């Protein structure tokens, strides 16, 4: 299989595994997070609603108390009595003992004349007949004003109650310091960015907001009409999300507004969110890492299996090829052997006859003898070839047989004689005489020699030398065979790859890239080894070691 296909397979495995593990993880994470965040937000809103309700009730009670106080005074005092100087003053003093919020008191008759006043300002004699609030008191009996600066030049509001004393109506009017009132509202302001204030129906501030009047309130609230109970509005501003808690006061057309920065309230949630994201990322990364590792392991295993299979196939094919070749060689050798024997005998017969007297006299006697000599020489030469072929054929039976390494090498070399001559390559051998025989497999050894010599010949493009030596090392009990050439050598960077299956420097179609790989594994199987001794510019040298095993018995 191609590398590309393995890469594709790896990517597929990675993708599928990643999908099946990460998607459920993300689903789980998001679901839990959204459930949690929904619950948390609801909780925050509920808290805000409770706060707004409680505070608006408190304000209602505060207002109600002031009104009740005034109503009691109006109900228990007569107009006459209050109009006397000192009467009103007395009452203001008593009230102020329990509540500092009262600034002044005044009595207004039904014509709108301020008939009596007690307080820091001189308002006596002012006529309120044309003021709107005056008519409202007359109509409804109670009036609470918005906060205003008025004549007094500081924020305040007034409460007025109507008293019917016989035919006469009069009004008790009190000024309430809204500063005291304001502190009540401001106490609701929470956190670093929280705010609380009162607005009237026209969305005008009744208390000072914490951060000035910068926030264009109408943008958020869209002039809401009166509603009962608390209402929570979530709105976005240029500064981020804003949460408003709203409730109308019952006693007055004022809206309590509590503004919260959800960011502040949501800090624990945001922290959780951050943790979730970090843990999620770490989990996904570790899953990815795991998948990549497993995939790589699997692919490596697959590649190895593929390579082993290919090597096995190749070596099987090669050995079956050799076996077939061997059988053919044996057949041919036997068929050629007999005619050769006949030719030789006939030549011998001629030689015998040439010894006779009358033939010796012939003037061509010497020619005849030379011809017979030549015939015998060439018959012997042909016989050698046949012998080699037979030797090759015999070695096809894989055995643990007694092997003469020198002989195997010589026989292998004989296959290359012509090719070497043709390519101007000289092959020198330096074989140790009396090299001990060892138990091994001749055909496999021959295959290794064939591969290595073939490589050397391929390396020597423009001719060169191949040097082959054998040597027995009795101490380490092995036979060392060295096959080297003076070709270009093997570049350092591919040195480690040459024994890899499918690695080849030959042109496509000329080499399978399996020769060295098979040779390597064959030598390992035979208990020996094959290694490269790279000499760079001087060419390559392959060292084969073969264990020296003596025949038993």
């Amino acid at each position, binding site marked *: 299989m191609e590398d590309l296909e393995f890469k594709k397979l790896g990517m597929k495995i990675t993708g599928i595994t990643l999908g099946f593990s990460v998607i459920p993880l993300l689903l789980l994470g998001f679901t839990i997070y959204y459930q949690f965040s929904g619950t948390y937000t609801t909780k925050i809103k509920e808290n805000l609603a409770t706060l707004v309700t409680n505070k608006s009730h408190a304000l209602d009670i505060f207002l109600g108390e002031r009104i009740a106080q005034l109503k009691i005074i109006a109900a228990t005092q007569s107009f006459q009595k209050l109009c006397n100087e000192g009467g009103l003053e007395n009452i203001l003093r008593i009230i102020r003992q329990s509540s500092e919020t009262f600034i002044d008191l005044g009595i207004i008759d039904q014509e709108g004349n301020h008939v009596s006043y007690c307080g820091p300002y001189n308002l006596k004699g002012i006529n309120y007949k044309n003021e709107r609030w005056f008519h409202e008191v007359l109509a409804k009996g109670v009036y609470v004003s918005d906060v205003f600066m008025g004549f007094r030049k500081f924020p305040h509001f007034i409460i007025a109650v109507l008293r019917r004393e016989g035919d006469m109506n009069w009004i008790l009017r009190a000024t309430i310091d809204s500063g005291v009132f304001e502190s009540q509202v401001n106490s609701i302001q929470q956190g670093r960015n929280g705010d609380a204030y009162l607005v009237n129906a026209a969305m005008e501030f009744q208390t000072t907001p914490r951060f000035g009047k910068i926030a264009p309130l109408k943008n958020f609230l869209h002039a809401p009409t009166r509603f009962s109970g608390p209402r929570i509005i979530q709105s976005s501003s240029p500064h981020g999300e804003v949460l408003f808690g709203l409730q109308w006061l019952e006693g007055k057309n004022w809206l309590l507004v509590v503004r919260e920065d959800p960011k502040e309230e949501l800090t624990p949630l945001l922290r959780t969110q951050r943790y979730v994201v970090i843990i999620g990322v770490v989990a996904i990364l570790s899953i990815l890492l795991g998948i990549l590792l497993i995939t790589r392991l699997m692919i490596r295993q697959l590649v190895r299996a593929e390579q082993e299979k290919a090597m096995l196939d190749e070596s099987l094919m090669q050995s079956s090829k050799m076996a077939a070749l061997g059988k053919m060689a044996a057949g041919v050798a036997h068929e050629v052997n007999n005619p050769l024997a006949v030719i030789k005998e006939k030549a011998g017969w001629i030689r*015998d006859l040439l010894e006779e007297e009358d033939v010796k006299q012939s003037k061509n006697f010497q020619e005849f003898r030379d011809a017979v000599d030549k015939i015998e020489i060439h018959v012997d030469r042909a016989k050698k070839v046949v012998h080699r072929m*037979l030797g090759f054929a015999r070695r096809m039976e894989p055995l643990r047989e007694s092997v003469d390494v020198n002989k195997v090498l010589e026989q292998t070399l004989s296959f290359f004689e012509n090719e070497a001559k043709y390519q101007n390559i000289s092959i020198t051998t330096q074989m140790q005489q009396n090299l001990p025989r060892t138990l091994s497999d001749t055909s496999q050894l021959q295959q290794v020699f064939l591969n290595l010599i073939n490589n050397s010949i391929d390396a020597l493009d423009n001719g060169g030398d191949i040097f082959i030596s054998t040597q027995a090392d009795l101490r380490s009990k092995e036979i060392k065979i060295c096959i080297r050439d003076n070709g270009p050598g093997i570049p350092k960077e591919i040195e480690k790859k040459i024994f890899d299956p499918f690695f080849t420097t030959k042109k496509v179609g000329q080499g399978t890239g399996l020769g060295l790989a098979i040779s390597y594994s064959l030598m390992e199987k035979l208990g020996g080894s094959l290694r490269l001794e790279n000499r760079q510019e001087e060419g390559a040298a392959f060292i084969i070691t073969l264990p020296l095993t003596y025949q038993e018995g």
Partner: protein
Amino acid sequence: MEAMRVLIVDDEIDLLETVVKRLQKRHINASGLPDGEKALAYLRDNPIDVVVLDVKMPGKNGLEILEEIKNTYPSIEVIMITGHASIRSGKQGMSLGAFDYMMKPVGIDELLEKIRQAWIKGQSENNGR
């Protein structure tokens, strides 16, 4: 000492004829036959001292002929000629009582020498009996 009588058995007629001729030229009383059956029949009527037997022959092979010769005429010495690939049958022949085996191709002088040795061995054994 009687003249020795040699029988060559080989299915390769050209080879057989030439070898016989060359032996005769060396004053050996040699005759040749192309197969084992004929050889056995020939032995019935003609006294022979040494038989040179090719192992690989059509019909009865050399080893079978060898066994029969040794059974019927124990005094005849047999030299086996084997091909390169059948050394084993040569060794087998030795265990069946052959004098020796020789590998093809056999030079005429070696053959002659081997025949002589076989004959001498046969002579001494027969005289001793």
